[in-house]
């Protein structure tokens, strides 16, 4: 078996457990979009063109609330600003690649694939290790498109009472399990979480995500410096 394909497969396997909550998330998105009044084609278009769960849900929320296009686009940008940090982390590992591959990788740079491939990139020295991220991204892409489609078809046959949207924060919680044992990480987690929760209503354009992220990173910067001095 070709070694690039092996890395690609490893990406698929590593990201798979994280894909289970993507199923209800995609269904919910499809159902909501139709409910709000988007056509089935436009709903599929969102999943294909944007390919980002949080961005698409924010688009729906603000659109249904009657927000202007400018507010919607800037809010989607604010929610997505976390990708700037993902990109910064990943860029070190892909900086020698051709523009074509950088574009492909960017399209597939989603939360789950980033989290799993970031762990893999730190351990691997293979020059084609980026296939891991593509494997994870493609897996999520297939599931996201399929579940969006199913959501459009099934519509309101799925009861809202199940509270499946709770699967979304649980996914992100599961991504942090290795960090709960480390003191600095725990402090960073608490700071970021508090800033986001308290700032949710006061920071405009849904920018609370990136404000909280920078508060957390700033905390990490200080704490790692202090601890080295001791």
């Amino acid at each position, binding site marked *: 078996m070709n070694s690039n394909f092996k890395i690609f497969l490893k990406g698929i396997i590593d990201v798979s457990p994280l894909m289970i909550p993507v199923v209800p998330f995609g269904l919910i998105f499809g159902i909501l979009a139709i409910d709000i009044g988007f056509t089935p084609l436009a709903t599929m278009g969102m999943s294909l063109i944007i390919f980002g769960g949080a961005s698409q849900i924010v688009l729906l929320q603000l659109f249904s609330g009657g927000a202007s296009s400018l507010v919607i686009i800037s809010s989607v940008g604010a929610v997505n600003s976390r990708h700037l940090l993902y990109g910064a982390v990943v860029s070190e590992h892909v900086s020698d690649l051709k523009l074509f591959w950088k574009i492909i990788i960017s399209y597939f740079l989603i939360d789950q694939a980033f989290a799993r491939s970031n762990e893999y990139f730190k351990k691997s020295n293979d020059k084609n290790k980026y296939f891991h991220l593509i494997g994870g991204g493609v897996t999520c892409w297939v599931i996201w498109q399929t579940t969006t489609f199913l959501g459009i078809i099934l519509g309101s046959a799925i009861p809202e009472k199940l509270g499946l949207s709770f699967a979304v924060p649980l996914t992100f*919680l599961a991504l942090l399990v290795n960090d*709960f044992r480390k003191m600095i990480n725990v402090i960073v987690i608490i700071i970021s979480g508090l800033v986001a929760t308290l700032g949710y209503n006061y920071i405009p354009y849904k920018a609370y995500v990136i404000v909280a*992220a920078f508060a957390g990173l700033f905390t990490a910067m200080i704490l790692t410096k202090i601890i080295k001095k001791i």
Partner: protein
Amino acid sequence: MSDWALIIYCGLITFLTRFSMIALLKKEMFNDRIREVLSYVPSAIFPAIIFPAIFLDNNGLIHLENNPKILAAIIAMGVGIFSRNILATIFSGLASYWFLIFVV
């Protein structure tokens, strides 16, 4: 603005946030100190998605009393710390959430 134009602009801005750093940063710009701080990126971002989804209600108000999500998240976290297993974490959280809203 038409629905399609809105979707395309949102798609473009999403892509640009993912692409810009990958396109701009070079390997030579990294050193151990930057790498160390960047290793905290997941811990700095994910809680900003987790906490509001657990502690805020649909109207964006802080909801602490009788909130089954808090207990379910704590159980999931406990399971996660001990098992270090992603699936066990997600399912224990969902199962306890359903237990709390349907049974208790």
